[in-house]
């Protein structure tokens, strides 16, 4: 591939690039108008807003390939953008360049009922797949994200499934990917290696290289197509909930661990501060009302199966867990409310309501990592102390909606039958309030080393050069980090693929 020796000003360069992009996608679908660019400058993280230099909206893998090849030729950055719901600045073009907005690639290419899989493009939302799969008795797993986010991007990014955690994380449901590499070449992995793809997922042949694309935020390539697993919708379902004393986090975590290990839930379990009230109401006023009836710490369990007998068996198992752990059932009134309003679809809605969590401030500062379940309570308490340290006197800013530390939230999910846990701890500083941003960044500087030293592991190191987890954690990884850096250098020698992510490309001369 030709590598152009660029002797142009940045403006001239991007004018030339823009002209060629328009040749690829058509006049309407590429622009450098600042009014358009600003739409891609920010997400719900604390990352500082950055505009790209150009935005392009391809409609096919072929066009994406041509775009990346062009970027490579000119040595300009390419940042993929699927539906824009990132919580960690992953799609903010920190160093400018081309934002490749994939939303025109929004088709479900195939829904294979027989083989329980779906083949999708990047612009397909979780909601779209859910609605179509439900018609044939199948479902995708519910993301810990709104229904409006890209299913492909969320899976690529190791999305955590609030209600499906025994299936692991997003990448565990991927059967195959189509990826445009930094030179424009197209790589197909897993089942998409087959000309007539099917349900067979062959990792390899030999070593499986698809893993380097997982949670890589596009630094090795842009995923343009995915085949993902679907799951059956159970015929029978019920819901119950346990409540705990506010300070007894050990009891909560033990309950969750037991439920997961006994496999008595329909892989549905959620421990969250009373925010589950949001899922039971249609609006914020309703959520506030229900919330008053709820304890701060609680666990929600769905159980059921293909037959009523199976559901009853699970209920007996659950009763035993309640007995062993000493957990208390929710009051009947609340359980009845659950029964009236919560079902699988409702849970799905509940997840899409996550924006309500940040309804007062508008910004997640989330710390999201894996940790042994029994360590979670102590970690959560330490986190609250850090929140107090960084936000304690910020109540004075409430009129400006700066985050108050009392509103720090966290929740715990057992993963893979309770083998490990995922602890999410959230703070909500206000992007529009400089003091809030300052405190949020200070919180990140405190929390990230603390989490790493305590044995927590960020399996998707979000963030950029200002607040990112990756910049702190990745250099601690030694040989692992060195190999990743080598791979990046080899696969993307001009460092054009979403540069500045994961701590791999801090020094562009290295790559």
């Amino acid at each position, binding site marked *: 591939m030709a590598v152009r020796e660029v002797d142009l000003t940045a403006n001239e360069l991007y004018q030339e690039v823009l002209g060629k992009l328009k040749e690829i996608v058509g006049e309407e679908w590429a622009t450098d108008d*600042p*009014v358009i660019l*600003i*739409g891609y400058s920010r997400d719900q993280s604390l990352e500082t807003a950055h505009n790209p230099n150009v935005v392009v909206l391809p409609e096919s893998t072929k066009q994406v390939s041509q775009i990346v090849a062009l970027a490579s030729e000119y040595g300009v950055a390419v940042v993929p953008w699927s539906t824009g719901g990132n919580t960690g600045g992953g799609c903010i073009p920190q160093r400018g360049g081309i934002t490749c907005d994939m939303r025109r690639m929004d088709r479900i290419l195939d829904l294979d009922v027989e083989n329980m899989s779906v083949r999708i493009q990047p612009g397909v939302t979780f909601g779209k797949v859910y*609605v*179509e799969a439900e018609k044939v008795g199948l479902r995708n797993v519910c993301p810990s994200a709104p*229904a*409006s986010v890209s299913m492909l991007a969320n899976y690529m990014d190791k999305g955590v499934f609030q209600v499906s955690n025994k299936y692991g994380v997003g990448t565990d449901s991927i059967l195959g990917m189509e990826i445009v590499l930094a030179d424009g070449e197209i790589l197909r992995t897993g089942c998409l290696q087959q000309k007539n793809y099917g349900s067979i997922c062959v990792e390899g042949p030999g070593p499986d290289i698809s893993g380097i694309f997982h949670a890589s935020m596009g630094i090795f390539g842009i995923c343009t197509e995915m085949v993902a697993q679907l799951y059956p919708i159970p015929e029978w379902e019920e819901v119950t909930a346990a409540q705990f004393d506010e300070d007894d986090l050990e009891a909560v975590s033990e309950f969750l661990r037991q439920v997961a290990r006994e496999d008595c839930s329909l892989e549905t379990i959620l421990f969250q501060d009373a925010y589950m009230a949001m899922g039971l109401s249609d609006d914020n006023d309703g959520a506030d009302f229900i919330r008053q009836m709820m304890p701060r710490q609680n666990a929600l369990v769905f159980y059921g199966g293909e037959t009523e007998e199976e559901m009853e068996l699970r209920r007996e198992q659950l009763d035993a867990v309640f007995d062993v752990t000493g957990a208390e059932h929710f009051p009947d009134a609340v359980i009845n409310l659950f029964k009236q309003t919560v079902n699988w679809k409702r849970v799905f809605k509940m997840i899409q309501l996550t924006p309500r969590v940040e*309804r007062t401030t*508008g910004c997640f500062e989330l710390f999201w990592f894996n940790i042994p379940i029994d360590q979670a309570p102590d970690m959560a308490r330490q986190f609250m102390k850090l929140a107090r340290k960084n936000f304690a006197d910020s109540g004075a800013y409430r009129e400006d909606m700066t985050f108050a530390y009392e509103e720090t939230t966290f929740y715990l999910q057992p993963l893979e039958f309770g083998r490990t846990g995922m602890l999410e701890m959230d703070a909500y500083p206000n992007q529009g309030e400089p003091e809030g941003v300052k405190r949020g960044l200070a919180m990140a500087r405190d929390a990230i080393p603390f989490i790493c030293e305590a044995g927590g592991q960020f399996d998707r190191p979000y963030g950029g050069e200002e607040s990112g987890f990756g910049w702190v954690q990745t250099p601690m990884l030694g040989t692992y980090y060195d190999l990743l850096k080598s791979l990046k250098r080899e696969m993307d020698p001009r460092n054009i693929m979403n540069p500045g992510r994961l701590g791999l490309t801090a020094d562009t001369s290295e790559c």
Partner: protein
Amino acid sequence: MANLTRNRFDPLLQVQKDAYRCGKCMQCKWIDHDLMSDTEFMAMCPSGARFRYEAYYASGRQEIARGMLEGTLDYNERLLHILFTCTECGGCQVICSNLGDKNPLKTIVALRERAFRDRKAPLPEHETLIKSMENYENPWQQPRSRRDAWMKRMNLKDARKEDVDTLFFVGCTAAYDTKLQENARATADILTMAGVNFGVLGKDELCCGSTLLRMGDVDRYKKMAVKNIESLNSLGVERVVTACSGCSSVLRHEYPELGGLNAKVKHATELVQELVKKGQLELKKPIKKTVTYHDPCHLGRYAGVYEEPRKILGAIPGIELVEMPRNRENAFCCGAGAGVKTAYPEFAQWVARERMREAASTGAELLVTACPFCEQNLGSVKQGPEVVDILDLVRESAGGV
């Protein structure tokens, strides 16, 4: 951060918090997923669905507001296109206010108001409309003398001179558009058949000002609204009824900020449903048609009137109502509102075609609506079911002409 206080009268300061608080959940783009039945029709935002760039959605417009507040964006043709292709249908607002306590509709209104104050608006295409409002007090460049043309030979009471308890506020579109004047006549016929003691203002009726408000010309709107409030309050009527969704929305929800009307405001569908329920209006003649109902934005999302029109259709013998995938709060806009049809007729047509394609997917023979503006725009699409106003059906079933 740039100087946010450079102009304390900047309308954008009122929406500053929302501009920064937008959490980018991206749900404003789609109808409520919980109610989604056909993913072919899942788009909520007309301008976003057509132009696709992020800036054309509510979430992107919040960023534009931020850029304007911080002084990093300046006006250009594209910015005005983004601001004025929003139909202010309120779809984003419904989703966002339920989820996040935010008010994206207010942001677009503030952006337009600021464009007017910065003398970047009105758009050339809107100038004629505004001049018409100034000269004729209607947006259709029609003389006042023709405002009562629709009621020739109808012998209706003059609300200024006779003792009536209800004013029928006709609205500009039904009064002047010769194709839609039948809607006004149908409303009057229905009120007469039900024995409602009503009158009209004839040539003296003024535009409600809705178009000015939606376009962002707030100052002119306020003058028009105040004039209307004084005029309508002087009548001493108990009730104002209108068959126009835009009028009812402004009279009911916007006028209170300027003092408001003494009379209760009802859309004709609300009153008709009451009359049917009380037995004052009998819908007896069967109309054997499969119909689908298009919720006008200003009647549905703005006023929350979803069920009354459906109950009316349910009360007409022979009618089978089939819902479009996007209905009630999730209804897709007709594409005409907020000055869009005037400034960007091709885009307005594109939106209308999308909606008519959805209507056709239901197999309905008729698309029924309750807004002359919707009827005008949807009716201009050649493919799809025939477009009719609900009051035409009511009159027919009640035994009128």
